[in-house]
């Protein structure tokens, strides 16, 4: 029983982190049909920001986790700059393929910059451990980090969904995602909506970075690459462009990884993740919650 609970909580925790990152992929994809390969690297930016700011916060007598707000701002600014300096000019002149290659280029540029700047890379850094105590309920124990990750992610996801459904800017995002031309006619400033989307997506990556380093206290310049791929797979599995899909996809990937590691072998985890991805895409090519709505003419 306790093994089972451990597998579920580990899966949910991993899955929550993937889901937070997947939201960034899916939001940007939904709005400009671009797979933002640099999105994973926003986690790295968040990770390093936390590495530097957590000790600074604690020196000032503030709680270490509050440094995440600085990381959110730094990531949002980086996200907006990437859109403003690279994606927007390329999108104006090129096509989807040129945008895609720009995203891959941006990912390498961010990783490489981090390696080259002496204050940051190239060696891994070990950040301060946060939330490293356990809560025991009977024979079952759960780490505070796990609990916080699951709860905070759930709150953020529900909040984000409500934001897109109920607020003016959230509705504008859905409009831009569905029909840019009509959105312009409504008076929506499309470029503004796109840049806000990047800021939100990157900000979520900063939160994910905090959750991740609370569990695996190591920050490297390439940490975004692996995490990013799992999150991207989550987004595709759930149905890219769909917010609930990204959440569901993240949780599924997390549970599958944790389940495989617990009951089979941790070296088999990736095999199962990608196996499930392929099977789901064979049955539902648009992803679990993805929709293919025909347009009425």
């Amino acid at each position, binding site marked *: 029983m306790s093994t089972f609970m451990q597998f579920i909580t580990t899966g949910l925790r991993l899955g929550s982190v993937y889901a937070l990152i997947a939201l960034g992929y899916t939001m940007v994809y939904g709005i400009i049909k671009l797979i933002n390969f640099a999105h994973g690297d926003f986690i790295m930016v968040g990770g390093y920001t936390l590495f530097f700011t957590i000790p600074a916060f604690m020196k000032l007598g503030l709680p270490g986790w509050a440094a995440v707000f600085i990381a959110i701002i730094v990531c949002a600014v980086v996200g907006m700059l990437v859109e403003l300096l690279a994606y927007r000019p390329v999108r104006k002149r090129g096509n989807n393929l040129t945008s895609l290659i720009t995203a891959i280029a941006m990912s390498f540029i961010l990783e490489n910059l981090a390696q080259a700047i002496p204050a940051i890379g190239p060696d891994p850094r070990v950040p301060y451990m946060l939330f490293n105590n356990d809560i025991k309920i009977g024979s079952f124990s759960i780490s505070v980090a796990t609990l916080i990750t699951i709860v905070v992610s759930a709150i953020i996801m529900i909040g984000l969904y409500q934001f897109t459904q109920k607020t003016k800017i959230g509705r504008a995002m859905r409009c831009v995602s569905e*029909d840019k031309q009509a959105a*312009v006619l409504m*008076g929506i400033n499309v470029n503004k909506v796109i840049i806000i989307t990047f800021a939100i997506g990157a900000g979520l990556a900063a939160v994910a970075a905090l959750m991740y380093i609370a569990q695996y206290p190591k920050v490297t310049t390439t940490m975004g690459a692996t995490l990013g791929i799992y999150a991207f797979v989550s987004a595709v599995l759930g149905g890219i462009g769909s917010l609930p899909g990204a959440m569901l996809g993240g949780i599924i990937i997390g549970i599958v990884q944790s389940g495989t590691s617990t009951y089979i072998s941790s070296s088999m985890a990736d095999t199962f993740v990608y196996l499930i991805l392929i099977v789901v895409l064979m049955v539902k090519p648009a992803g679990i919650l993805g929709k293919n709505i025909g347009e009425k003419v």
Partner: protein
Amino acid sequence: MLNIKDLCVSYGAISALKGISLTVNDGELVTLIGANGAGKTTTLHTISGLLKASSGTIMLDDIDLQKTPAHKIIEYGMAQVPEGRHVFAQMTVLENLYMGAYSISDKKKIEDNIEWVFHHFPRLKERSKQLAGTLSGGEQQMLATGRAIMTNPKIVLMDEPSMGLSPLLVSEIFSIIKELQKSGITILLVEQNAKMALSIADRAYVLENGKISMSGNASELLNDERVKKAYLGA
């Protein structure tokens, strides 16, 4: 109200509009008719800022529309019902109407306008919670029209509202257009269905290969031999 002078637009090397001029006065219902590829939609897209002109001017009263970002135009009182409706299929009817009012922040005014739209289009009220993508073509056209008048515009541009609709629905839509004009909205109606358009419009322009080939009173054009031959199938 709307004044276009010597407008030229080209897609790369192909010139779609070769210097057209047209005027829509306050309160008028003016139609721009022409065959496929004559440049009707190009004209509308250039007015609404989705396309850039290579030369010429577009003035909405004293505002130079070419210097206005596309998303700002609605704030100056010009709304558009695009060709093919372009309703937000995955949003409800009510949400679509809210999006039409995106540029206004007065909540009371928005609610009043929703009532006003529902008064004109009772069918939209019945379906207000339904996703727009599940509506029929005629209902989507009503929604696109309702969405466009959510800002109380001075002028509405309508692009092919009759497209793909049954004759019965076409006459329903056209009587609504006439009604909107009566309520004080100036309308520029772009249509392939020349007969219907000419029968409700005050004045008309005929667009041919990117040029205005004829213009005048709609009723006169309706009886013009050349128009009859080319557009009315007589």
